[in-house]
């Protein structure tokens, strides 16, 4: 038994991220850690890697108590993480990256030759002698940088290697090469923990799988003795609640019609048609290219190809033009991009109002007050600073901005992320109301329940492509998850 986890609990403020989680990873196996977004798998991984400490629970490594307080301690103990955002320094060479922090030296002067030959050895062991040890990492491809990071684990004689969604930034061919490499690690008796939500990857490369849902381990299974459907059922689990408004809409004529949209990396190829008075959902796992798609549409990211038409005219390639044509956007990143937290509610709300050069302060305040009343925003008044509002109330202002600027097409990217249940439900009713007023909504959400409960249609994206479309009335969370994960 290589790595044993038992009774691990961790909470952030009032949110319980891990509740009494236990599982065992054996030497020489690839063990998948699967779960939907927010299921607690990243928190577990950060604990294994020494980034955060659990509140309770015991970890053992080869039978010895293992309680790393930093990534460095984890690495010294024999546990290395291969990051999703690869952690190599672009300005150092391959050798220097492999030895970063543990350089071999004599009185501070590097023993370059010794490190170089050891680095060559590690790379050869991984079957990647094609990577020159002296080249700067900035000149390597993403896949090659990942190999350098894995070589770092080999150099540290790691007993356990954690992979955090390692294929998220790789092309198809590179994924194959990575799998070969992981099989090699396995043969050397290294235990691999493979964090993913792609079912096909679990079936291909993993021996066992532990599924987390809502902070709890809901099962550890032998991959050979299970099916993708069974794993998906474990991952999705819960029933659809009654938090969504009942609706019976009949959307009208098309207001937006886009075909073969291509962005810098994602989307690869996407068609999208939106009708008047329709709520169109976009489902997909993290990194599927949903956000990239709407950013391209709205002109925030560069459109590399395809045609985008709204209201029977080509769409503008810049946000200000789109605001003017009655298209509004709510960013998934509320703090960074969605709102200016140091400014007042009024400043935030009336920022994109198109077509006016001069606006009176009185008018702007009145408009803000109207939105505050309409959406029952809890605040002291239009002049209050954005940052002092709760997440849910902030989000109401972000959406209110679209109402204020009279948007007829509303693009909402994860509008309920990180807000309380009550505000979520209020936002659901807002979306429902918008559709009833003849506006059209594009809704991105990682919560399948939301998509099924709110949308007329849901299109599914995977790896930058639209892979299908479902009608919520005839579908289920499980079906959506299977489509997103490629089961």
């Amino acid at each position: 038994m290589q790595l044993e986890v038992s009774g691990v609990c961790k909470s952030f403020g009032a949110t319980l991220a891990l509740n009494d989680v236990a599982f065992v990873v054996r030497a020489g196996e690839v063990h998948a850690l699967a779960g939907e977004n927010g299921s607690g798998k990243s928190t577990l991984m950060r604990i294994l890697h020494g980034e955060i400490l659990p509140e309770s629970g015991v970890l053992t490594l080869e039978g010895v108590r293992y309680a790393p307080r930093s990534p460095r301690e984890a690495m010294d103990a024999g546990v290395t993480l291969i990051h999703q955002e690869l952690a190599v320094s672009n300005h150092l060479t391959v050798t220097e990256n492999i030895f970063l922090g543990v350089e071999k030296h004599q009185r501070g002067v590097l023993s370059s030759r010794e490190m170089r030959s050891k680095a060559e050895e590690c790379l050869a062991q991984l079957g990647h002698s094609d990577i020159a040890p002296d080249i700067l990492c900035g000149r390597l491809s993403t896949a090659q940088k990942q190999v350098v990071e894995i070589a770092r684990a080999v150099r540290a004689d790691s007993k356990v290697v954690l992979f955090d969604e390692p294929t998220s930034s790789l092309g198809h061919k590179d994924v194959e090469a990575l799998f070969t490499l992981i099989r090699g690690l396995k043969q050397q008796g290294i235990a691999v923990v493979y964090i993913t939500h792609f079912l096909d990857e679990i079936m291909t490369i993993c021996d066992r799988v532990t599924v987390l849902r809502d902070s709890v381990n809901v099962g550890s299974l032998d991959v050979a003795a299970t099916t993708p459907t069974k794993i998906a059922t474990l991952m999705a689990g819960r029933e659809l609640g009654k938090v969504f408004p009942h609706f019976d809409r009949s959307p009208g004529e098309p207001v937006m019609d886009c075909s073969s949209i291509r962005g810098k990396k994602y989307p690869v190829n996407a068609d999208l048609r939106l009708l008047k008075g329709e709520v169109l959902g976009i489902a997909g796992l993290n990194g599927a290219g949903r956000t990239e798609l709407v950013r391209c549409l709205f002109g925030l990211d560069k459109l590399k190809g395809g045609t985008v038409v709204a209201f029977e005219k080509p769409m503008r390639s810049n946000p200000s033009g789109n605001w003017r044509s009655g298209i509004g956007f709510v960013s998934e990143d509320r703090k960074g991009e969605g709102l200016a937290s140091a400014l007042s509610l009024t400043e935030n709300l009336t920022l994109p109002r198109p077509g006016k050069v001069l606006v009176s302060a009185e008018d702007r305040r009145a408009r803000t007050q109207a939105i505050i009343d309409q959406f029952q925003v809890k605040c002291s008044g239009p002049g209050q600073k954005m940052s002092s509002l709760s997440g849910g109330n902030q989000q109401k202002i972000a959406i209110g901005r679209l109402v204020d600027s009279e948007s007829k097409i509303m693009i909402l990217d994860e509008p309920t992320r990180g807000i309380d249940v009550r505000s979520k439900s209020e936002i659901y009713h807002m979306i429902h109301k918008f559709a009833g007023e003849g506006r059209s909504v594009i809704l991105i959400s990682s919560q399948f329940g939301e998509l099924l409960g709110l949308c007329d249609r849901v299109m599914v994206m995977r790896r930058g492509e639209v892979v299908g479309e479902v009608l919520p009335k005839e579908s289920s969370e499980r079906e959506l998850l299977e489509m997103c994960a490629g089961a």
Partner: protein
Amino acid sequence: MKSAGLVAAWVVIFAVFALLLPNSFATSRNIETIFRQMIIVGFAAIGMTFVIISGAIDLSVGSLVALVTVVIAKLLNAGQSPVVAGLVGILVGGLAGLVNGVLVTKLKVGSFIVTLATLLAFRGIAKGIANEQSVTAPLNWLRYFTAALSPSQKWMVLPLGGWLVIALAVLSGFVLHRTVFGRHLVATGSSPATAKMCGVNVDRTQLLVFVLAGVCFGLAGVMQFSRLTIGDPTVASGLELSVIAAVVIGGGSLTGGEGSLFGSLIGALIMTTIATGGSQMGLPNWVQEIVTGVIILSAVALDRWRVTRGQDGAN
């Protein structure tokens, strides 16, 4: 390849002035003058290269140079030998660097803000010590570091200060490329998160960078005193900009991780050549300033273009 491009750029600039000033510019005497002029910026640029590679910036260099000249003059007046005065000057530089480094790593408000504050504070201290006047000092041999060579010294090619800059650059290059500290410094500037994860003590590295830079700035102060032969609390104001420009022309990136000592010295040389050539042609100061601005922008834009083109090629 990149250094070759820089040297070529300097040769072109030099050739242009040589054509415009056919009788006086391309003479050994004038070349010596240019090299003498670049000694101060050169020392400071070596320190700044470390700082910029580590992902930080140090704006206090000009004030620190002035402070060092004042300290040296005061010590000489108090009867200390030039050796003691010079060494204490360098020590003051190192201490000032320590102050910058401690503030940057403890306050976490960013090196720009910290050194903007110490730019004011160091200048104030210099003025305070000097009673807001220049401090005259007895003539001594420190001036030979930057003085024009007499006919009997021609075999030296460069004055002592020039050779010291070159020696310090070689030593610094060794530290940067061949020591653990040097690699940690690059890792810190390139990606602090990665460095930290790998167990690099990012704060200690950053602190040491500021101390080393302070020592280099102290040396620049000694050279400034050597040029002036007096302590002047108002000297070298705006020096930080020429120094940063030299480093950036030489390939330093203000986002950290990149910079070249050789490049920075050539950058300093380019800046000095333009200044010398410009004043010898009788160009008014304002024209020189505009030209320098344009050159800095084109150097960085060219580099930017090279980098983005390289990235597109890789994809």
